[in-house]
């Protein structure tokens, strides 16, 4: 399932109704619930693909929304809200790696991730393959291919210039293709 970095419908409607003007009211609980329902699933998947740890992903998801609410987001700037979420989640996930490295809980935390696999068999263990990439490479690929984010959006989420995204994304794709080849999984040949 591909989730475009699109705006939640109700927020889009309210924005159109107000003619694009930004009122100063902070988000109320009902608005938050609607926004959470429309974003939490895709955000969790993103964090999980970065960390490879379901419990840590639950934790980081909540922290992301705590920060989001603390920032007192303006309900009308919907694009900004969603970008803010992914940027915050990326920062928190990177902090998570740094912390893990510092505590020496994981070896080579920057390069690999802890993976608590669901108790089920997978034909191909996608996450294990994906975890061979660096965290930034995973973030780039997920945002580009799954969130279908623009280079600007990716740049903002990762805190890099959008002009650099092209090169970084190219390298990440090449790296993944190599990893896939090593696992006998591709890369695919385009007909």
């Amino acid at each position, binding site marked *: 399932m591909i989730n475009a970095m699109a705006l939640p419908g109700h927020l889009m409607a309210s924005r159109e109704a107000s003619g694009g003007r930004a009122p100063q009211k902070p988000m109320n609980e009902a608005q938050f619930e609607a926004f*959470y329902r429309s974003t939490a699933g895709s955000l969790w998947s993103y964090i999980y693909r970065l960390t490879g740890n379901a419990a840590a992903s639950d934790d980081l*998801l*909540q922290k992301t929304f705590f920060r989001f609410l*603390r920032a007192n987001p303006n309900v009308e700037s919907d694009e900004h809200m969603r970008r803010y979420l992914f940027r915050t989640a990326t920062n928190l996930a990177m902090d998570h790696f740094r912390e893990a490295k510092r505590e020496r809980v994981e070896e080579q935390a920057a390069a690999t991730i802890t993976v608590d696999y669901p108790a089920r068999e997978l034909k191909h263990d996608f996450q294990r393959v994906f975890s061979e990439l660096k965290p930034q490479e995973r973030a780039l690929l997920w945002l580009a291919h*799954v969130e279908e984010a623009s280079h600007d959006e990716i740049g903002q989420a990762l805190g890099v210039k959008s002009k650099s*995204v092209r090169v970084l994304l190219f390298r990440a794709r090449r790296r993944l293709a190599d990893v*896939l080849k090593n696992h006998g999984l591709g890369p695919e040949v*385009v007909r």
Partner: protein
Amino acid sequence: MNDHCRYEHDVMHAARESRWTEVLQGHLASCEDCQAAAAVTGFMENLSEDNARVRPLPSASAVWLKAQLLRDTLAAERVARPFTVFQWLAYFVVASGWAGLMTWKWDVVRQWMLSFTPAHVIQSASGLTAPSIPLAFYAGIVVLASLTMFLALHTILAEE
């Protein structure tokens, strides 16, 4: 202005659906970016469809409630911060008060302490008078003792 290939998204869609137009195929042959994108699109599609979540997400209301509690805690900490500074200042003032009082009437204090030795107890019993202590000294002791008690109680209650 845009630094990325304008066909990138179309190529990813085509790779996902295995539907290539001649234009896209022609472009793909000459674009390294799009070749790299097309090569991993299938894997990324599989990865995104592999639902890794085995338990439900934290509920929106729980996240909202926790965020409010966290906000209140942070607000309380912000309010408490100047008070902590005031508390340290109070410790300093009381400690300086005690030190000042003891220095001011050190002779009297020393004599008072010595009055507990057996020799002085006998001297007092035989009717020899103790040195006179000014009323201000007693008043100082009462005030500082009250302040010390107040600070100690405040510290204990604040910690609880």
